[in-house]
């Protein structure tokens, strides 16, 4: 039996409507031409499709199509935005602000810049995971050139107030980059009113193909970037490399579908999260990481105290979820996101992320509720920590070997 899929925040299946469009861009009969070929119809037709896709992406975000640069995915977009802006504006200053709970694509990029002589401030989130305007304000300096913060956090679903953060950045003349890999097509983004200068997108988080993404680069006021790739001058010299027509068309179609179906998707996803939470809420010693009230409902992170996350994933073998447990990571460190929220390590080890999407069904959620309840109680039955908790032992007072 194929496991039930509850890991949409990791990746999504490609919508069949997207696949149909992509298939037309590969073979001799289709639009296989190089969009950069200016001398024949194969190139012109491919270019037309690329521009249609660019329009579809910009339309969802309410920006100018000329502000969309194709990349290989959100990781490249984050790299291009952060390194590109940091290096272009380094005469002005070498201070960058980000947070401790950003995606690794942002954090590791910042670490790299640190090694090149930039100074990075890593803000602590509040206990719910959002970045306070005050904390940001207190850390903006004269030499700050860039703020990079995510829109929806990939582990806990917390939504940053990018409207207020953008206003603050603009007042201070600081470039604002937002990683929107988890939010584009899920919640409303209006770049005509937001004071966001750079925004990263991914196709595969929103039922498009892997290997394609985009970076929004504001035209007014104009943001300039030092490119990462050099070559044939594509994407106005900001990102060289032959444009992958089929990937781009796939992303465009996925964003177009999202534009039409975002409201319905969101309603369904909220109801799935509510069903799951209603089913599990009565259990002893479970904790929500993030917020039921204000978080994005498609990402729901729970800690089942006294049960280790990897063992729970193993027990839930018919459900595909992910965990902040150290045992599921190559580094053997528990989730840095949950630790930054001030969660004790044991709760990070016990965390499971359920993420829902367009194809999740109510039946799947209901069976998940039952499976989770059964598995947690089975694992607690064999947990010495649960036994101590039941005996009234204070685990914090024990000296662990």
């Amino acid at each position, binding site marked *: 039996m194929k496991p039930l899929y509850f890991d949409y925040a990791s990746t999504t299946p490609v919508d069949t409507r997207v696949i149909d469009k992509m298939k037309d861009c590969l073979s001799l009969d289709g639009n296989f031409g190089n969009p950069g070929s200016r001398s024949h119809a194969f190139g012109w037709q491919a270019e037309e499709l690329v521009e249609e896709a660019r329009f579809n992406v910009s339309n969802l975000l309410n920006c100018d199509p000329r502000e969309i640069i194709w990349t290989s995915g959100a990781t490249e977009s984050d790299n291009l935005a952060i390194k590109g802006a940091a290096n272009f504006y380094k005469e002005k200053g070498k201070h960058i602000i980000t947070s401790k709970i950003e995606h690794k694509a942002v954090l590791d990029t910042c670490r790299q810049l640190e090694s090149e002589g930039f100074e990075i401030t890593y803000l602590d989130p509040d206990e719910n995971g959002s970045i306070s305007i005050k904390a940001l304000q207190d850390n903006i300096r004269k030499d700050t050139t860039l703020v990079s913060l995510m829109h929806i956090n990939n582990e806990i679903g917390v939504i940053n107030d990018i409207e207020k953060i953008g206003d603050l950045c603009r007042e201070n003349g600081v470039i604002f980059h937002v990683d929107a890999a988890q939010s584009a097509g899920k919640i409303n983004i209006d770049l005509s009113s937001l004071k966001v200068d750079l925004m990263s997108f991914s196709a595969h988080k929103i039922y498009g193909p892997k290997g394609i993404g985009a970076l929004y680069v504001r035209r007014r006021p104009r943001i300039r970037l030092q490119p990462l790739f050099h070559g044939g001058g594509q994407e106005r010299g900001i990102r060289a490399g032959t444009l992958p027509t089929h990937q781009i068309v796939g992303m465009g179609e996925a964003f177009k579908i999202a534009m039409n179906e975002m409201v319905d998707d969101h309603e369904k996803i909220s109801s799935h999260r509510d069903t799951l939470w209603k089913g599990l809420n009565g259990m002893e010693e479970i904790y929500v990481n993030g917020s039921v009230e204000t978080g994005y409902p498609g990402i729901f992170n729970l800690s089942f105290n006294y*049960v280790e996350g990897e063992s729970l994933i*193993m027990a839930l073998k018919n459900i595909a979820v992910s965990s902040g*447990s150290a045992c599921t990571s190559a580094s053997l460190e528990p989730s840095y996101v949950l630790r930054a929220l001030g969660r004790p390590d*044991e709760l990070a080890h016990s965390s499971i992320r359920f993420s829902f999407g367009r194809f999740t069904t109510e039946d799947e959620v209901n069976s998940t509720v039952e499976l989770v309840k059964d598995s947690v109680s089975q694992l607690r039955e064999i*947990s*010495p*920590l649960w036994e101590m908790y039941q005996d009234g032992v204070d685990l914090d007072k024990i000296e662990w070997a």
Partner: protein
Amino acid sequence: MAYSQKVIDKFEKTLKNPEEASVGRWKPGDKDFHRVGTGIVGAPACGDVMKLQIKCENVDNKNVIVDAKFKTYGCGSAIASSGQLIDMLKGKTIEEAQQISNQEIVDILELPAIKIHCSVLAEEAIHRAIDDFKSRRNND
């Protein structure tokens, strides 16, 4: 996680039928509790806690482990390693049990390299339980 079928089987059997897999405990007040040694190793913050108990009887002037129970908080391989250790203990003298090395558990369960610490934890647990048993006998 690329676990061997052996780890998965052991884990699933333990979950499905904990009593048969020797999950449980002896507590103060139980008959024969003075013949039980307890070892607790690991820490919640590290994601692994193993509690092992051995019950010994004197056979021909030797302390023989006649029964053992465990409870484990940890990843699948930590739970499987504890169960495997239990299987290896029963019927052994404490001197023999002392000789059990983590490598035996690694070999039997085909643990991946990144999970070897689970078997080390099991080896530490038996040492602790034996020490605890011995210190209790000295106090008799």
